[in-house]
């Protein structure tokens, strides 16, 4: 029998390894790959956690829509039809948790009820994951909830647009402590840690100072009657059902989800958190953005503003 040349056997062995390796890699890539085709989605939408489970809503529903998870689950699972609600699980590996989620009454209430003194700082990875998945939850906000949120925000802001003061003790010297929590943001049982609403600035305490200093008497040096611009109830709409214009600048507020995301105050959360391309529908105000300011201020003769 002819002796198989040594090199040939090596090639065969190597090819066998390659095929096995490709199969293994392929399996894991496949299980991580999106369940739905991406072409109808905004690319940015796909990137975000919030879009992992996203029912598609009929355009005719836009004016009055509230997202209803029951409808989504009733309609069952995956369909590409335009008229059906589609549950978007990001990958096959997450199918199991999506199915599990559907059988639970409310994942948000579950998170909130987990308040226990011992683990008030604990953030369970499972809870975080469920919170992300819960972006498909029915988010409807009452006017009372909105007012409550606005009042809450007002407590540590001099006016709408003022940098919030810090409601906890701060490190007097460095910014590392701020970054540790606020770079990402989180929500625990008892704490809400907002993610920075703006890009990264190094000198945090330049704008954000402590709301109070416990080691000093709390009374003010002198009283002040400044009344700050209140936060608007909402942006103006071109017609009923039109998406509201942003009632504030995007300057220093470029991270919409910092205030309107799932971990923000209930009353100002987005009603449609699975949509992440906010500026697609909500335009900024040119005045507030300072792109269309009065080009030349005017001297007003004979004492302006009455007298």
């Amino acid at each position, binding site marked *: 029998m002819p002796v198989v040349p040594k090199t040939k056997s090596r090639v065969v062995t190597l090819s066998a390894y390659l095929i096995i390796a490709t199969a293994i890699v392929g399996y894991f890539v496949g299980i991580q790959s999106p369940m739905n085709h991406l072409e109808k989605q905004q690319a940015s939408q796909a990137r975000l956690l919030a879009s992992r489970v996203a029912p598609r809503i009929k355009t005719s529903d836009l004016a009055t829509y509230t997202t209803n998870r029951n409808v989504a689950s009733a309609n069952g699972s995956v369909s590409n039809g335009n008229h059906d609600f589609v549950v978007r699980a990001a990958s096959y590996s997450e199918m199991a948790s999506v199915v599990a989620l559907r059988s639970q009454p409310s994942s948000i209430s579950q998170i909130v009820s987990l308040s226990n003194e011992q683990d008030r700082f604990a953030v369970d990875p499972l809870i975080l994951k469920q919170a992300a998945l819960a972006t498909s939850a029915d988010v409807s906000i009452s006017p009372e909830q909105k007012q409550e949120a606005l009042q809450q925000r007002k407590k540590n802001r001099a006016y*709408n647009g003022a*940098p919030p003061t810090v409601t906890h003790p701060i490190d007097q010297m460095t910014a590392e402590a701020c970054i540790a929590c606020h770079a990402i943001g989180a929500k625990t049982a008892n704490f809400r840690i907002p993610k920075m609403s703006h890009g990264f600035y190094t000198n945090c305490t330049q704008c954000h100072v402590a709301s109070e200093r416990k080691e000093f008497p709390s009374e*003010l*040096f*002198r009283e002040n009657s400044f009344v700050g611009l209140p936060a608007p109830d909402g942006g103006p709409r071109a017609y009923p059902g039109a998406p509201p214009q942003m*009632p504030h600048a*995007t300057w220093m507020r470029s991270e919409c989800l910092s205030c309107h995301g799932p971990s923000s105050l209930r009353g100002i959360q987005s009603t449609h958190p699975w949509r992440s391309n906010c500026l697609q529908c909500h335009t900024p105000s040119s005045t507030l953005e*300072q792109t269309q300011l009065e080009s030349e201020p005017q001297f007003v*003769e004979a004492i302006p503003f*009455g007298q």
Partner: protein
Amino acid sequence: MATATAVAAGSDVVRLPVLSASDVVGDLKWNKAPCRFCGTGCHVQVGVQDGKVVAVAGDRNAEVNKGLLCVKGYHVGGVLYGKDRLTKPLLRKGDSYEAISWEEAIEVIADRIVAAPERFAMYGSGQWTIPEGYAALKLMKGGLSNNHIDPNARLCMASAVTGFLATYGVDEPAGCYDDLDNCDVLIMWGNNPAEMHPVLFSRVVDRRSRGEKVTLIDIGTRRTRTTTHCNHYLEMKGHGDLAIANGIAHLLIKNKTYSETFVKSFCNFKAPDEANPNLHGKSISFDDFVEMVKPYTPEFVEECSGVPAEQIRLLGELFGNPNLKITSLWCMGVNQHTCGTAMNAMIHGVHLLSGHFGRPGDAPTSLTGQPSACGTVREVGTLAHTLPGGRTVNTPEHRQETEEIWRLPPGRINAVPGFHTVQMWESFCTPKADGGAIDTIWVQVTNPGQTLPNLNKLFNKKEGLEEKFLIVSDVYPTATTRLADLILPSAMWVEKNGMFGNSERRTQQWFKMVDPPEEARDDCWQTIAVAHRLMKKGVAGLKDRDGRFLFDVQDSNGKSVPIWDWNHYYDTNVDEHLFEEYRKFTRLKHKDLAPYGEYVKARGLRWPVVKKGDQWVETRYRFVSKLDPYVQKEAAIQFYHSSTKDDRAQIWFHPWVPPAEVPDKEYPFNLCTGRVLEHWHSGSMTRRIPELSRAMPSAYVELNAEDAASLGIRNGDPVILESRRGTLEIQAWIEGRGKPPKGSVFVPFFDESKLINNLTLDAVDPFSKQPDYKKCAVRIRKA
């Protein structure tokens, strides 16, 4: 998010659907103004609704701050609405005050002046707007032939002025804030910009977040927030900076890494003239200079400054590297220094010697603390010895030129400089019988009762001196109004028109947006009203040689507008009239200003602003060919105001000397005073803003942890600080905002209930007459 990114980047390419402001939030109207506080000169957008300021936003069209502010700037709107605003003129009657009319108040001031015009003084500040300072200067020097006018800037940046004059022959920085965007190395000399100029500091440190490499070096006497951002911290003893600068020069020469071409082409050498101390000094050769810096080896510098020799070598290497771009920043650490003039000149000196000058990013840049320290004090010239546009009272041609522009009879302007700040207040606090030459001081826009050094000598002694009369124009009751005989309620910030000039030669303008409360009125109107009353009382100086009122303002028909009458003050834009007259002075020193209208359109313009075609163009870098319109030579650098008349700058040698007062057995600690992020200077404005007051309610003494342990002092304990001049009880803060080294303590001066200036020293720099608030000896004990 592409739109958001473009918007956030400040691009105006993105055109958004135009909606009027009222569609968005009621009748809110936005308008531009520079911030009221520090010398950075950020622009803010002021939101006004129903005649009140209700919001503030960083102005994204402003080059200085590019939309960013600091916490003081964001809350600047609140300064107008403290509940204890002064709203009526108040005259002291015995132990209480009586509200009087403006008519009476003006009469009281005019009578005091008429009684003894030469014993009257005005004390203002770098918070005077340009027109306000100009009017006060014209009243004093043009109207009363009296040079006793000085600003609090004497306590703040007088040494920066003398440093610039001694080096370049003309005041103010050659570079600008753009250097902060271009430097590879930033050296901060006794400076804590993370708290005092946060917007500028962020401009540098945020470059790192964008992936750029900038080396930050802190040369300081205590660890601060700035230190935590720095690559190197050089902890020095007081006056160590003098030795460090000489040490750098020593190493540059020893290693032959100084720039021979730069020095040969553009520099001379100077040393102090011991026999006749002045800003010209005596000329020395390069070889003399080499001999003088020879003793300053890194080891000797370590001995004088406490900074390890290794770190001195590091500085020597950095300055010796021509490929690096080095910017130096400094403010009060160098200026409030009994060798402040020397130290300012020496920082310029190491930059010149090493050739780190004239390229964007290569600059010695002095910062100012007040919004118009440059615009009003240094450019208008509201100092005891100056006239507008860089002129001085003791130069005959300068007096003549000023008399010509003001149309005064020849000889009206007094040739003898008036009293500088410390002299003025010492004289005011000295009884007439004992030689006190000042009887009446009119204070505008400042708070000397808190900010003068050695208050017990320079301010508190006024109490009980019946023949002395203190007039204070202010917006709130302060440590100064407590001894005032007449208090005048002033309008402030956007309650009036105004112009400021910031640290980078940028002149800024804003319009009145809201009314001042009740009877509060513009400081400029107050000055003009008094001037008019003096004219009515027959004081000859208030008329020019044509018999017209010194502040005569005519409308477009050539008819005089009665601006001394408050009801007519805003019939015309008085600021514009005064500014257009002042502008004529600015050509002499090539600090050309554009017409008023150009500043209305801009977010400030950096002088010299020259006309090219039909455009007014600002200047970013002075003395550099192609960048500075007044550089004629093809050569790269031309110091066209050189004091040696040869287009060269002066590199100074000054020896190291110890501070005026050093710790000893009896008073073993060094006391340094300063500021904090949340409060601006004496705190009379910022302490009335709830957010700022809550964040920093009260002053404290920072102690080193080991010192505190050995004294048995714990965090929060009340302690007694004592100097040879005064005593203060204050709370201790250990491991807090700053960390002083062993043997030194720090106290901020913003708190009027804890007047640290009762303890500070009134020793001054011999040239600038600026006191040193950073070094004096104290002892500490538990209360």
